[in-house]
């Protein structure tokens, strides 16, 4: 870890090669832990929120999206602004620590100055500091997507995350990727959790009875708080249903209304929805279900430095991968929110010291695998990242690997929003590949598919992303394609968004009636056969030694 002195020197040195006019801004940076945590406390309750850790225990690089299109009523609204527009909207100085943490602007250059974010040991330091300051007023809530998508979380079936989170002593959580561990494992982990796993929107498929506790109440700072859990409504559609055959999800607005009423009638002064709906779904929900004071959003990985208000409901978006901890202080009197103050605390790992207890636990968990995970298998010449509506350079590498290792004409790779970023010139480790691919259904299929069928699949996924009604959206991004290109008009209805589908190898249009050899991974179907995707990607990188991906997309995007 860099000391503060080292950090400032690095920052000063970096100033020389960032675009003109910013060097002064760099020189003026005086980041300290005190400044990162500075907060003028207000009211009688403090909510701390983390979400979408995706199995990440250590500090990491994560570039936010340069393109995040909003449709329907959400068009042009946060979180659907990115890059410079986002910085201007929040009056954030380019090149500042906040600009680095919240946007894609000059990511590679700024990463060298500001380093990695996150790390559960740093988060523990922040949580302890806030608890020390606010005592019994603090409630810590985990929005889910915590137990999966890293190597150690995959091979320990989520145990590593459960053990580390236990040290943070959260008060409740909800879930999404957790369910890809399968129903039995989920039940087993919840049994020993020591805190509540809440999900008002999961029912058993047989009798339509609640499968999980819907809500829990807490007394904090003299305030009775009801926390209602909302798991990702489309888990059995976006992820394998066969792993959780007896659970049915959905948004379940009516049940939520009933639970809010029950909470209020039960004496709750403050009603919090701990949600994994995704931001746009929660924004619509807030406009239709009254009585919720705060929605702690998740799933869509948006990091917003200010609360968004819908009617009387405050929406908080806390980012992903441990980059941020949200702190929301609330002044609750007469069972109403009389005032609030919010801060999205960026977890700069070079500034915030590690909590010793958490650091030791993380090291112990990683020790047996550290050498293997740290092994460099190649190098990247270009910036590799995941986020973006239609492609990411890291996904391009995955698609290249699929095409060459599986000898296919077209590759499909899921539009997951998790996975760490790599800087130009950086060595690629095995862990970097696991961070982008670690799932419980990793088989790389290979099959023939007609051009018409391919288009049908792409249209279907596009509608899951760009349907103007958020309740019909599933979150995530567009399925990535290798070996082909297309034009997409996001404003069109399903079936007519895509045009100009071209096969790269032949330079000819995709023929509806012709069969193509297609490879891909993360099929939700039971019994899918093929090697795990991480093996395929690592083999490709080991052969190539050096990989590169152009930031220029092969996808042409149209929107009014």
């Amino acid at each position: 870890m860099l000391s503060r002195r080292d950090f400032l020197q690095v920052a000063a040195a970096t100033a020389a090669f960032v675009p003109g006019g910013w060097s002064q801004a760099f020189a003026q940076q005086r980041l300290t832990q005190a400044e990162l945590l500075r907060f003028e406390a207000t009211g009688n309750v403090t909510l701390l929120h983390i979400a979408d850790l995706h199995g990440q225990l250590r500090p990491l690089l994560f570039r936010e999206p340069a393109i995040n299109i909003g449709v329907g009523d959400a068009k042009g609204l946060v979180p659907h602004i990115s890059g410079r527009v986002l910085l201007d909207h929040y009056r954030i100085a380019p090149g500042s620590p906040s600009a680095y943490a919240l946007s894609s602007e000059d990511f590679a250059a700024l990463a060298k100055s500001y380093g990695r974010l996150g790390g559960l040991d740093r988060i523990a330091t922040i949580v302890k500091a806030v608890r020390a300051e606010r005592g019994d007023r603090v409630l810590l809530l985990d929005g889910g997507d915590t137990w999966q998508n890293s190597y150690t979380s995959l091979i320990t079936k989520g145990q590593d995350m459960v053990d580390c989170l236990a040290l943070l002593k959260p008060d409740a959580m909800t879930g999404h990727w957790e369910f890809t561990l399968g129903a039995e494992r989920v039940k087993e982990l919840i049994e020993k959790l020591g805190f509540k796993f809440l999900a008002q929107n999961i029912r058993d498929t047989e009798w339509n009875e609640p499968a999980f506790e819907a809500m829990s109440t807490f007394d904090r700072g003299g305030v009775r708080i009801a926390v209602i859990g909302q798991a990702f409504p489309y888990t059995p559609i976006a992820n394998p249903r066969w792993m959780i055959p007896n659970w049915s999800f959905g948004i379940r607005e009516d049940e939520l209304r009933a639970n809010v009423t029950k909470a209020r009638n039960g004496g709750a002064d403050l009603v919090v929805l701990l949600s994994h709906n995704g931001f746009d779904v929660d924004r619509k929900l807030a406009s239709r279900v009254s009585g919720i004071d705060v929605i702690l959003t998740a799933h869509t990985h948006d990091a917003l430095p200010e609360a968004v208000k819908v009617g009387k409901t405050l929406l908080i978006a806390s980012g992903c991968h441990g980059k941020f901890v949200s702190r929301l202080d609330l002044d609750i009197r007469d069972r109403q929110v009389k005032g609030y103050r919010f801060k999205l605390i960026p977890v700069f790992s070079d500034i915030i010291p590690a909590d010793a207890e958490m650091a030791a636990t993380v090291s112990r968990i990683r020790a047996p695998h550290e050498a293997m995970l740290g092994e460099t298998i190649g190098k990247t010449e270009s910036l590799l990242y995941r986020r973006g509506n239609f492609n990411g350079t890291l996904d391009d590498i995955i698609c290249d690997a699929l095409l060459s290792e599986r000898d296919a004409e077209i590759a499909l790779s899921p539009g997951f929003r998790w996975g760490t970023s790599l800087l130009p010139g950086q060595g690629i480790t095995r862990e970097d590949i696991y961070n982008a691919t670690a799932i419980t259904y990793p088989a790389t299929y290979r099959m023939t598919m007609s051009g018409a069928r391919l288009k049908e699949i792409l249209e279907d996924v596009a509608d899951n992303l760009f349907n103007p009604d958020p309740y019909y959206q599933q979150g995530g991004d567009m399925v990535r394609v290798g070996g082909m290109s297309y034009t997409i008009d996001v404003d069109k209805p399903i079936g007519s968004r895509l045009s100009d589908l071209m096969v790269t190898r032949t330079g000819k249009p995709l023929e509806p009636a012709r069969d193509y050899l297609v490879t891909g991974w993360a099929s939700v179907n039971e019994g899918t056969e093929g090697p795990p995707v991480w093996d395929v990607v690592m083999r490709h990188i080991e052969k190539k030694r050096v990989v590169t991906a152009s930031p220029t997309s092969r996808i042409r995007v149209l929107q009014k």
Partner: protein
Amino acid sequence: MKRSFDRRQVLTWGAGVAAIAALGIPGGPAHAKNDVEEVIAKFTGGKTPTTGKVKLDLPEIAENGNTVPMTVAVESPMTTESYVSDVLVVTDGNPRAGVAVFHFSPASGVAEANTRIRLATSQNIIAVAKMNDGSFFTATKAVKVTIGGCGG
């Protein structure tokens, strides 16, 4: 090695794909109309039902198109003076529109029924309620039967 798979086995990424393929309807809900208008017209005797009073509860996106939970409820005091006598449920995208007709009487207490229905593809589900005074009320709900879940 090259393998070809049964469509049912591979990369359906969700429910209902086999059914869409069988119908030969590319691109989801841009489907051909079935006999939905005739079935409704026959039920209402040609009257146009008024929107309202009927509530259809279905998921926005089906988890499994072969068995989609559906609840239909109609606002009514359910007295001998004023009650719901029949509720027709139809779809506009299945090979045939008809799903169910539920019969009620004042003794039913409430006009509510739930069952599970099969949806071949993304489409609208329409419920039409017949009141004892001969008036008709209706509600529509679109349900997506998706093939491309990649959320995350």
